[in-house]
């Protein structure tokens, strides 16, 4: 009984850390551009594929190097995708074309993975050995997931509050016109935000590849759960993702153990509907003043 609780909590928090990482990658792009990138889940899975092809059964130093490579590759791809997404937004009339274009990008990416890799789930060997928590054997990648969440939270916090570049990205999310009037290179900063989001999911997908389903159709599920984590925490709040992610993860694990693995996404959907009905601004979201 106790061990079951331990499994649910440990695995839930670990899986939830992955959702939190995706949520953080949503937040930085959303802040800078107002866009929520539907393709982010497939980008995350791409990191998993990078682990399979570049770093399956290798030594630690090569693995570390490849993690950086994976992050950079995905960052480059997301930046390119971001560039395409921002193209039609140059004209003021098309302010929500991004919903369609990031969705299309997600479909394209998923389709390419499906065509080239087939509908299989790939297994990636873990570099980090498993360990025991409360007497339960736990894959090492779970610890990596939690570690990555904590690392990226503090890294983003430092970046957005202390560095000139990060402050500028914060600034454009706070008042775009004032930022342009101040001469901040808005388009470039937005692309940098896309790149950072790619770096987050590219490294995250790589790190947790041994414990996720590395398959072409997994992306949508991660996008969904990442979004639920974002909404639970409050869109724009990285602190909120630290709560939202693990919460969604634990709910998913609880569902898997008590009802069945195939009901996990249903549980996430219900959490999403519930939070939107009860507290649409999320746990840490700010209500913004309405301007008429």
């Amino acid at each position, binding site marked *: 009984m106790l061990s079951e609780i331990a499994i649910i909590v440990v695995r839930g928090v670990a899986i939830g850390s992955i959702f939190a990482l995706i949520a953080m990658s949503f937040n930085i792009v959303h802040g800078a551009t107002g866009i929520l990138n539907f393709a982010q889940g497939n980008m995350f899975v791409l990191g998993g594929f990078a682990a399979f092809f570049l770093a399956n059964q290798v030594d630690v130093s090569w693995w570390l190097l490849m993690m950086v490579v994976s992050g950079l590759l995905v960052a480059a791809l997301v930046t390119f995708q971001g560039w395409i997404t921002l193209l039609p937004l140059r004209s003021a009339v098309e302010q929500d074309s991004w919903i369609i274009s990031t969705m299309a990008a997600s479909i394209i990416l998923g389709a390419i993975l499906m065509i080239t890799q087939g509908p299989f789930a790939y297994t990636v060997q873990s570099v980090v050995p498993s360990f025991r928590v409360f007497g339960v054997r736990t894959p090492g990648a779970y610890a990596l997931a939690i570690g990555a969440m904590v690392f990226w939270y503090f890294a983003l916090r430092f970046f957005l509050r202390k560095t000139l570049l990060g*402050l500028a990205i914060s600034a454009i999310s*706070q*008042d775009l*016109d*004032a*930022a*342009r*009037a101040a*001469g*901040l290179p808005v388009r470039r900063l937005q692309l940098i935000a896309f790149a950072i989001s790619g770096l987050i999911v590219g490294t995250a997908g790589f790190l947790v590849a041994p414990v996720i389903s590395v398959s072409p159709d997994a992306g949508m599920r991660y996008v969904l759960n990442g979004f639920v984590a974002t909404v639970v925490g409050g869109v724009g709040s990285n602190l909120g993702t630290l709560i939202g992610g693990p919460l969604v993860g634990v709910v998913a694990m609880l569902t898997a153990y008590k009802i069945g693995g195939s009901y996990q996404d249903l549980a996430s959907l219900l959490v999403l509907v519930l939070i939107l009905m009860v507290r649409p601004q999320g746990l840490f979201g700010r209500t913004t003043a309405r301007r008429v």
Partner: protein
Amino acid sequence: MLKVNNLYAGYGIVPVLEDVSLSVSAGEILLIGGENGAGKSTLMRAIAGFNKPTKGEVLLDGKPLQGMAPEAIAQSGLRLVLDGHRVFPELSVYDNLRMGAAARRGDKAAFSKAVDQIYDVFPILKEKHKAYARDLSGGQQQMLALGQAFVAQPKVLLCDEPSMGLAQALLPPILSFLRNWAESGTAVVIVEQHLKVTAPYADRAMIIERGKVKFTCKASELDEKLGLAETAAAH
């Protein structure tokens, strides 16, 4: 310094400005008045690149600016301070100033000198340099917005309704700051509805009506001219 020739601009396909020309030279303040909806803000935004002029040219030191993105125009030395004391609410006062200088990279010494100057003129900003900008009062936010422009050391400053939302008593110190700034060799354009208070600080004045220039005159003659214009309209 700044020359605007026969500018036409609007929103979408609705024209707002028609054939507006103006010029400001270094060290001079041009005051632009006119009622709400006359097109003052549209003029400022068109010069600064926020809405693309449909016709006409904007020249900074003879170099055309029209058609450029606002951030590029800001980087080439023309700075617009938007109306409504807009700063970055979630950044500290000091970081807001840093953002002001982000457009011109390097030269840390010049930046800290400019910051010191701002702190001298508006000591409250120094006192609150760690506070979030959202916690400042409207007047302090306006000072910060101007300070943010000041550290960029632009050649031309456009200032859209510095008085908006502020108590009138706050206006004179802001205007005298702008006066001193102009005298250091900057061309300044102020859009303002409180003409009486502002005119003494300005060199020339221009009135816009329904998107067109109604008249231009010396700032000292503004009152008289306005009186005349109104009598004329009445008949």
